[in-house]
């Protein structure tokens, strides 16, 4: 659904903020469990790159489970502020759409 695609980056950021520090595969599992369906890793990493360029997350490499290494991401203070801002913006948006679609006026 277009809404899940439109909110994917923000949702990924929200998951990182909730976890503090996490990694790609874990985020994909959380997204799938939340109802986003199977999101590809190839979709997630460009999102990470943009979030990091915006200063909302930081990344670092650590040991993986017997593999070549694992990229971990953690939220920054700016990222936490952004999640809070998104939460407020979504509440207002939700109220507006709900009123509109149910035939009321704002």
């Amino acid at each position, binding site marked *: 659904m277009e809404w899940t695609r439109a909110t994917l980056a923000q949702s990924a950021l929200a998951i990182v903020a909730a976890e503090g520090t996490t990694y790609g595969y874990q985020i994909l599992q959380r997204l799938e469990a939340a109802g986003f369906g199977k999101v590809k890793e190839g979709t997630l990493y460009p999102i990470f*790159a943009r979030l990091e360029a915006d200063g909302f997350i930081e990344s670092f490499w650590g040991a993986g489970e017997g*593999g070549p290494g694992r990229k971990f991401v953690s939220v920054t203070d700016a990222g936490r502020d952004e999640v809070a801002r998104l939460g407020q913006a979504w509440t207002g948006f939700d109220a507006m759409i709900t009123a509109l679609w149910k035939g009321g006026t704002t």
Partner: protein
Amino acid sequence: MGTEYPQPQPQSRPLERHRKWRDDLVIQLRMDDVPGDRIGEILLEVETHVHETGESPEEAFGPAKEYAKERATASGFTEVDEDDPDSTRLLLIGFGSFAGAGLYASGAIALGQGLGSFLGLPAWIITLIGAALLVALLVRLPEDLVRHPTTGAPLLGTSTLGRWIVGGLLALLGVGLYLLGGRLA
């Protein structure tokens, strides 16, 4: 946070089984002017996922070229612009290679023919200038290796051996041209 994550250890390379995909990715990233250390990071992300899930890179990341373009855009890199200073640098390197090769070959042949001078200069100087241009350009071949993001180890081999081989071939070529000049005299 507070959690200490140990440095990754050198491991087997899951992408060795998907060389074409890997090579297509690296080539496109290079064409999009993505630095070597960034390419190393992107490669390792793919390797990690392939290792952890068993999925092929094509399944998880899509066609290599498309994924490379997406990563280059997301990271703020774009294809080389014709008005970009780097493009001018590449043109100069290309012109320098052509000029160096021409001077080197001409000078070596002239020496072989016993000609004292060429283009108004002693033939040995022409040869030397050509050789110096080619060596300078060889040395300036990309140092921007694809590296592991934390260990710095080259992920796709080094260019040092390649440079020695090319340098050796150039020397052999010079000898061959000198001998050819002698035959033409």
